[in-house]
């Protein structure tokens, strides 16, 4: 699995309240969530984002509430991948479970700026910054998680593995 896109860059501790504010949680319509994605942090995000773009952030991305609306809003905004120095654990689970590709790499987070173009190879965990001509190595997912990602989420995985 591969992705290529322009970078939107954010700081440490981007929480789920700014990814999708609670005032929009009275619906779970993905398009409506995507329209308000990151609104309190970057009001223009939903207008500027293009299919394939990549979010790069500092540590503890997605901290706070367990709302799956957060990765869902990002995925529906057609972001191809989120790279962060570290992820908050519920966001990490949710992203895998709904099939939003994510990678942890403190080096890539530090060495990337807004507007850079990145190419990402998920199987190898390789991140290439095409703008800066740099290569970063992230930990690829364990096989168990790769299977869930390949099935595009936990639900399909459960369907496929009826032994559950």
């Amino acid at each position, binding site marked *: 699995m591969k992705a290529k896109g322009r970078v939107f860059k954010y700081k440490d*501790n981007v*929480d789920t*309240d*700014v990814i999708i*504010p*609670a*005032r929009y*949680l*009275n*619906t*779970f319509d993905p398009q409506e969530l995507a329209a308000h994605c990151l609104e*309190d*942090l970057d009001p223009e995000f939903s207008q500027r984002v293009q299919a394939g773009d990549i979010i790069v952030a500092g*540590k*503890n991305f997605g*901290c*706070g*509430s*367990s*709302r*799956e*609306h957060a*990765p*869902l809003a990002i995925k529906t905004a057609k972001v191809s991948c989120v790279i962060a120095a*570290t992820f*908050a*654990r*519920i966001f990490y*689970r*949710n992203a895998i*479970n*709904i099939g939003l590709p994510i990678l942890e790499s403190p080096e890539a987070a530090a060495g990337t700026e807004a507007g850079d173009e990145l190419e990402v190879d998920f199987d190898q965990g390789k991140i290439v910054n095409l703008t800066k001509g740099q290569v970063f190595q992230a930990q690829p997912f*364990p096989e*168990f*998680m790769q299977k869930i990602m390949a099935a595009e*989420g*936990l*639900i*399909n995985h*459960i*369907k496929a593995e009826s032994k*559950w």
Partner: protein
Amino acid sequence: MGMTMSQKILAAHAGKGEVRPGELLEANLDLVLGNDVTTPVAINEFHKTGYTQVFDGEKIAIVPDHFTPNKDLKAAEQCKMVREFAHQMGIANYFEVGAMGIEHCLIPEQGLAVPGDLIIGADSHTCTYGALGAFSTGVGSTDMAAGMATGRLWFKVPSALKFVLKNQPAPWVSGKDIILHIIGQIGVDGALYKSMEFMGDGLAHLSMDDRFTIANMAIEAGAKNGIFMVDAKTIAYVKEHSTKAYRIYEPDADAVYDEEYELDLSTLRPTVAFPHLPANTKTIDEVEDIQIDQVVIGSCTNGRLSDLRTAAGILKGKKVKKGVRVLVFPGTQRIYLQALREGIIEDLVTAGAVVSTPTCGPCLGGHMGILARGERAVSTTNRNFVGRMGHPESEVYLASPAVAAASALTGKITDPAQV
């Protein structure tokens, strides 16, 4: 290799003698929880699994608490969807308005969480039940769907931090001050992916309500779960509230912890988290003149009876500062009723506070107390992120019920010892 409490509970539920940090496993669940925001998404995913029945209607609990009593039309539709699903699937523990409370106050009160349980909830503060010696962790809606369908879920075995609490807390130092102090020390990702395990002789001085408050905010340090050693107080609580079988897990003598922290509770001070991070803490002595517009007392962190008692103790016979809006949210109907019987509600209302039916309300900027641009609140809730209680330019200061009540009297953040 010795195991922590959390590791032992995971091992037991995965049918394994031993587990190691980092290991991925599938484990059997004792309880699957959801609310009115996360359950609709889970129901959608559940239907996609192809399963037509839940694994066990007795082991699922659904509590509509975030936008209830229905805040608006969309919230009403979400609650209706959840209600119908619960009915269809024979989910015994669905709590309608009138029986409901804020989920993390309600579940222990209903006896649905006991020591040794493995619990998941599609709500990040599901870690609250660690106060009872359960392994309890917040997950997403897809996890909830998988849990409802199969009764099982994947877990990565966490490593752990050990917190040894010593001595009796100083005056006006509550569970809230202890956990704010810890988060201030280790940061909002200080326990990322890890368990926080609490033990030590200081536990004997902490009520169950204090422990619920501490476990509740483990997630604010990024933890997977927080868990307390079980003692006589835990057992007394469980016997009073539950008939479920329980099991006590203690850490092995050679259990491995990533870090060990010792806290002398007698040296702590009331602690306040400034905007916009729970780790942005100051002791009450370091707080300068912070004028406030609103005080919120309640939530899954501090909406329990002892919290309301503390607040009423400070407000009784006095008046809240003119111009300050003071909102009180009892955690459950039972807490509300008990507070009514003890005269707490009367003391609060006479002082000029309003008392609501149980709801998450302003805690997540949902309804019943949203902040306007530039407004400030002192709140006993657990998060003060940008926009958490309303406008992105409003501010939330997290504090104990005692500090919140004292601040209600003066209109600025105040040491309860000073009023």
